[in-house]
Structure formats: C-alpha cells, structure tokens
C-alpha cells in the first residue's frame, strides 16, 4: 500500500550541522523515498475523542508510515496525547472516555469487535511522559512483558533482556547491576530508556512515545532522539512532543494539531517534516513553528 504523505516526499539532503548519526538517518530516508514504496503501518480515520461528554479531539485522520518517526506536535490542549492513546486503546482506561472513528493496524481495525485489546497493546507499545519503571530490579522490569506472555525459559529471558537493554542504549550503564539494582534507583534519563527497553522486550511493531523527553535534561533528550533514529530500523515510531526542535531533528513526518474555538483539538496540517517546517501551507502552522504562539 502506498501512503498518502499529504504532499510529495521531497528527497532530503543531509545538512552539515547534523551528527553522523543524523546524516545516516537522513540518507536512509532519502533512499527509502526513492527506492522503496512507503508502507502505511497504522492509519487513523475520523478520530473523535471525548472525556465525560467534552470533545477533546475532532475528526483527526493521518497515516503512520512504517519504519519512520511520525511526530505529533501542537500547543498544549490540542489533543496530541489523546490521539496517541487511541493507537493502542489506552484511552479505555480513562473512565467516561469515548472514542469514535477507526484506527487500523496493518489494515485491521483495532477497535473492531472481536479484537483483543491485550493483543493490540502488545503489538503497539507505549512509552509514557513520565518514566514509570516498576518497583523491581532492572532485569525484572524488562523481563516483565515477556514473562506475562508466557516466556519461562531463563536463557531466552536473559537473551531478550540483554538485547532489549542494548537496543535501548542502556547496557553499558546497567549491565553490572542488572538483578540487584531497582529500576527506581536509576536517573531520569536512564529510567526512560529502561521503559523503552521494557517495551522493546515485548517485540512490538509500533512504539508510541508520549513526550518521552519532557521530564529529562537536554543530554538525556538527545540520547532518546538518537535512540529513536536507531530504532526505526526495526520499528515504527509515533511521538508526541511540544518541542519543535525535537520534532524537526528526530521525525520524518509531522502532524500539526491545534485547539479549535470549542477547545477541541483538530488536525491543521501534516506532511514530511522537512516540508512542513520549511514551507508550511497553513498560517497557524507557520506561527507555531516560528514560535509566535503556543
């Protein structure tokens, strides 16, 4: 399936100021756009979300491209997180939340009757805004998901844990104390990477990140961004952020949302990140990314 990118995917040039990692990613994106057909991994259609009767998201539709980072940006209150939580049905945990519209994962509606929410969440992982490791050892944090899925083999668990922590770029810092140190004893940035490792261990296809760096310092933020660039080799990522630099640096595709006069969030504009940031078609988008509001 060829994705509708809301415009032409312009080949991207590696800019001089980027790190070698960024150059790699940019080069890869260029290759993708030229050589491979872009595949839609998930797609939201006419999403509406309301909490206790108050509409917080109205009529939002956009695709999520496989093996890319899609960023949802916008001022606070524009319903970014609410949209994100529709992608793995986490809104259902909020009492009186109502979601309408559809979200497709590989052409299957995750809200269809007969679809197990547990299965959806296993395939679509979520990293929270505030790091929330379990009050257990680092090892147990990461092994939690696989264990619940029925993995009992110790050797295989060890392997999954090590692989996931390495993927989350945390291995060097924690490998000595894996089983004794509590996840809560790590620094904020480390905790967040632990939470990413915890999600990776369940081998999801899509990883949702809800402002994963908002509680972190600038260095930890950059680490998380670099990590995302590495992870899209294997995963598809959707990230919510209010940090435009972050969206510009780390994402391939950007969705800009704003809050309407009725205080419901709606989608203003979307497109390849480069294009949206360099030539926004909408006045609101331009104002937002140039910092005139929000």
């Amino acid at each position, binding site marked *: 399936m060829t994705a509708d990118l809301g415009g032409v995917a312009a080949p991207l040039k590696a800019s001089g100021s980027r790190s070698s990692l960024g150059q790699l990613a940019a080069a890869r994106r260029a290759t993708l756009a030229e050589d491979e057909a872009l595949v839609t991994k998930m797609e939201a259609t006419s999403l509406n979300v309301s909490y206790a009767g108050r509409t917080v998201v109205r009529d939002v539709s956009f695709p999520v491209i496989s093996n890319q980072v899609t960023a949802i940006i916008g001022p606070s209150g524009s319903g970014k997180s609410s949209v994100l939580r529709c992608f793995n049905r986490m809104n259902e945990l909020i009492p009186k939340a109502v979601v309408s519209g559809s979200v497709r994962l590989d052409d299957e509606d995750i809200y269809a009757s007969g679809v197990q929410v547990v299965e959806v969440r296993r395939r679509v992982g979520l990293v929270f805004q505030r790091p929330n490791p379990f009050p257990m050892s680092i090892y147990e944090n990461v092994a939690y998901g696989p264990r619940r*899925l*029925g993995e009992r083999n110790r050797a295989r668990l060890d392997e999954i844990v090590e692989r996931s922590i390495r993927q989350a770029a945390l291995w060097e810092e924690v490998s000595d104390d894996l089983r004794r140190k509590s996840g809560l004893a790590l620094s904020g940035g480390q905790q967040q990477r632990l939470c990413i490792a915890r999600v990776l261990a369940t081998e999801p296809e899509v990883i949702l990140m809800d402002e994963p760096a908002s509680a972190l310092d600038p260095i930890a933020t950059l680490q998380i961004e670099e990590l995302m660039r590495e992870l899209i080799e294997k995963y598809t990522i959707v990230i919510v952020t209010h940090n435009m630099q972050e969206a510009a640096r780390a994402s391939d595709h950007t969705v800009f949302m704003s809050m309407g006069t009725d205080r419901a969030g709606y989608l203003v504009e979307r497109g390849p990140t480069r294009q949206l940031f360099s030539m926004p078609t909408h006045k609101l988008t331009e104002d937002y990314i140039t910092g005139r509001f929000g």
Partner: protein
Amino acid sequence: MRRVLVADRVATATLWAIALAALLLLAAMIVHLVWAAVGTLSASFVLGDPEFLGLGGVGPVLWNSFYMLFLTALITVPAGIAAGIYMAEYAAEGRLTSAIRFAQEAISSIPSIVVGLFGLVAFVNLTGWGFSALAGSLALSVFNLPLMARLTEQALRAVPADERYASLALGSTKWQMIRHVVVPLAIPGIVTGIILTAGRIFGEAAALLFTAGLTTPSNYHFENLNVLDPKSPWSPFRPATTLAVYIWKVQSEGLGSSVKQIADGASALLLLCVLGFNVGARMISRVLVYRITRA
C-alpha cells in the same frame, strides 16, 4: 494468550462474586435481626423495665447506653479534639511526638476486655466508685480518645495550606489561625468522626463488664436530678448496664423462657441505633459541607 484472557475473566468474576456475597451476607444479617424482633419491638419493650425471668423491657439499659455515650463524649470530644490539634499542628519530630504516636497506636490495638480490666483497677477500685457509669465512661474514653484524636488530625490536615498561609500572612498568631481558620474548616470532618465513634461506643460491651457492671437500678425517676443519689438516672455514680452488655448478660445467664426474645429484640434495637448513627453521620456531614462551601 487465550489462557491469560480466561484467567482475567475468571478473576474478575470472582472479585464480583466476593463483593456480592459480602453484600448479601450483610443484608441477610440485618433482615434476620429485624425480622426476628418484629413481634418484640413494642413501646413497652423499648421503654419498659426489665423483669426477672419475664420478657420485660430494656428502657433503663437503653437509657444507660445514651447516658454513658453522653458522659464519654463529654470527656473525649474536648480531649480528643485537643489531642488531634496537637498532632496536626504542633507535633514536631521528637521523643514526645513519637511516644504519643506509639501510645495512640497501642491503645487502638489493646483488646477492649483488657481496657476493661484496667478500668476495674483504675476507675472502679482505686477511686472507690465501684461499678459505675462514670467508671464505664472512663474506660470507653480510654480507647475512644486516640480514635477521636486521629479523626480530628485527619480533618485538620485536610485543610488546604493556602488557607493557613492566608491567615498567617495577615499577621495572626498560630493559635488564632488554628482557632479561627483551621478548626472551623475541619468541623464537618470532626463532627462526622464524633458520630461514627459514637456508634462504636454505643455497641461496646467487653470494656464495660467490669467497669459499669452487670446490674442497674430500674424504675427510673427522671425528676430526681440529684446526681449524687445512686437511684437517680442522672447519677454517674451508680452501676449502669448498657444495652450491649444486657444482651450478653441475658444470653449468658440464660434464665427464663424469654431469653431469646429479649436478646433478639435488644440486638435489633442496638443495630438500629448504630445504623442510625451511621446514617446520621453521613447526613450531617453532607449538610455541614454544604453549608461551609456555600457560606
């Protein structure tokens, strides 16, 4: 995957079943108690005097329950509120505070029969009052005081810090702030606490067996206001069986053919009183909260 989902369903159903069973058990107990007492609960039973071997009434013991509740409240409400104010507003980390906390927890854990024995020594024998309403009330006060203190402390702590700062910023002293800002705002919580603990005092029996005694003068003459006259219902210096103690006494002595009827009737009456306190606490707290937030 399947198995996990089945386990989730089974667990959910089990938890619902437990909740339902608890509700049914409670309903069954209340219905049974009330049903068993339907024929007994008449004005002559509620207000009448006990009779040796006969059915009689529970008037004097019911009066004693209320009277001792009043005496106990007289002691514990001021003392408990004061202690609660100390815990919430003045207690600094230190030896005294941790000793008080420990005492508070310890009294709450000590069996009421042991409190009763302590009362027997301290309030019955040492004072020379003998089995008396006052000794019983003091024993009840012993374990009501920490409860009252805790409820007051919770109510005071629930008062937002903003209100305190506002008062202190206006230059009032700490006590003025407590007296005129914090305590008034905590009143609904405190009053609810008082009534809820009243229900507990009303139903207590073990602590009273050896303090208030198992006998009581009957044929009360309420016009006799001489509190020093042991025959006056107003006197704290007379033995005073309460309704709860009376139930225990009747069933353990097992004299006469009306034992079951008396105990059934008295149990239902006791339950209704306690339910009344419970409902009353809810209603009064609702009214008070409403008035404070509106005014």
